[in-house]
């Protein structure tokens, strides 16, 4: 029930964002995003492996839009609380997606059930559709300013 009160603003915290991340491949990118979630107490390590296995099994469908991947796994694979992390890669990586590769932004998601995170997910989608936000994410070196900018967008209900 606690999840009902959680908003996207609550989840956009500097500890769950990392910029200029250096990785060699998609697997490392998912691992980095997952490690942030683990460090913030959202998941167990098991969840990271579950996300990687799911891409190996089901393919690169987690690349939801050009340049953006949203890896996730099932709640029962080690999720403690609803959460998300955002990493921006120094060098883009390929997931093997025919249209949306290469990926520069990885938004790693962990949810506790099938639907209570819907409002957060649709707000998140709206933010990721915002060109100014994406531009800020890719160019601004100060995480604090990125979080501020995202929160301002949400608050002003630009969406």
């Amino acid at each position, binding site marked *: 029930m606690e999840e009902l009160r959680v908003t996207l603003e609550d989840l956009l915290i500097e500890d769950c964002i990392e910029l200029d991340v250096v990785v060699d491949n998609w697997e490392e990118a998912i691992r980095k995003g997952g490690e942030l979630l683990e460090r913030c107490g959202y998941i167990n390590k098991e969840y990271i492996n579950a996300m990687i296995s799911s891409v190996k099994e089901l393919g690169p469908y987690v690349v*939801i839009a050009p340049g*953006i991947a949203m890896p996730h796994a099932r709640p029962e694979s080690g999720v403690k609380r609803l959460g998300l992390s955002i990493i921006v890669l120094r060098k883009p990586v390929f997931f093997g997606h025919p*249209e949306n590769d290469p990926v520069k932004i990885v938004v790693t998601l962990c949810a506790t059930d099938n639907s209570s995170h819907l409002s957060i*997910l649709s707000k998140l989608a709206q933010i990721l*559709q915002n060109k100014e936000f994406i531009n800020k994410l890719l160019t601004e070196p100060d995480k604090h300013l990125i979080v501020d900018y995202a929160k301002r967008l949400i608050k002003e209900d630009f969406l």
Partner: protein
Amino acid sequence: MKLKVIGVCGMGLGTSLLLLSEVESIARKYGVEIEGEVVDLGSVRGKTCDVIISSSEIAKELKDLKIPIIEIKNMLDKREIEAKVKEFIESIRKS
């Protein structure tokens, strides 16, 4: 008009949910009532519905089903989603 729509993705809680919520808001605009459900790829078999919505990557796995599929390439592109959902609604209305 009422349509039963199933959103499908690998886990049944990410893009499927996102796409279904987009479908619901688009359908409202066109006066269509939606009965929606989201499922993971493994659970979609045996389900019945008027149309499935999924990413084009997931749709590849569903080609053998005898259910129309709305395939979305860019899950963050509202215009793509709206155009394809609208096209489906219009095709149903004509038939």
